[in-house]
């Protein structure tokens, strides 16, 4: 906001990207934008393509979060170079998204467990999902005393 006249000109009168500071900044911003939107496209494609709910849960929490991070970083660089000084808004948004993405993934996974979403047939250790839905610990059902060996036997059942 150092130059109010320029800002006014850009935001209200200008309709396209103008006054690119240098070819390097231009290139880096373009690269980051393409990487970011590519990752978001891959994330959404995964949302459509993957076979069951729990695998679908991976696509938005990972790919889309990194995609939006790259787009926001591109925007941060571009506005910082144009206006001078560090424009921190994008950093706040991406920090917020990185904080909330695991929380919303956790809550959606929890909801899906309680609605007993079907797993893919070849998913390994499905019995653990049943235990997780009841919030039991894996060792509780087994009668043997040694916890460690119980865990191992549970893991090797499906192999």
């Amino acid at each position, binding site marked *: 906001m150092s130059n109010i006249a320029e800002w006014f000109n850009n935001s209200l009168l200008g309709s396209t990207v103008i006054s690119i500071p240098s070819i390097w900044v231009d290139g880096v911003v373009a690269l980051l934008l393409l990487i970011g939107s590519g990752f*978001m496209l891959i994330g959404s494609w995964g949302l459509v393509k993957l076979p069951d*709910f729990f695998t679908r849960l991976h696509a938005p929490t990972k790919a889309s979060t990194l995609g939006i991070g790259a787009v926001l970083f591109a925007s941060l660089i571009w506005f910082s170079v144009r206006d001078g000084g560090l424009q921190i808004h994008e950093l706040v948004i991406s920090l917020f998204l990185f904080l909330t993405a695991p929380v*919303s993934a956790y809550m959606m996974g929890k909801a899906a467990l309680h609605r007993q979403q079907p797993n893919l047939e070849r998913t390994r250790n499905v019995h653990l999902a049943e235990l997780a839905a009841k919030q039991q610990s894996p060792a509780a059902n087994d009668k043997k005393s040694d916890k460690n060996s119980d865990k191992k036997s549970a893991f090797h059942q499906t192999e």
Partner: protein
Amino acid sequence: MLTWVVILSTVLVGIAMILCLYRLFIGPDITDRILALDTLYINSIALIILLGLYHGSALYFEGALLMAMLGFVSTSALAKYLLRGDLIE
């Protein structure tokens, strides 16, 4: 050149949003639909940032920030509603 890159990125994000809409329509269960909505709002944040770059205006960040917060709250509220509904049954 940057203008064209911004337009190309907007097209890519637009395709991503259409894919999310597809999942939103066919999603076999309501949890899939919530997941699609969650992805959709993240994509729309990117769309707003790209619009800000295209117009060269820093004003759009307020909207993006607002959208990020409302999106998280709505996702967690929907998930919580599902959980509580099942717990009462």
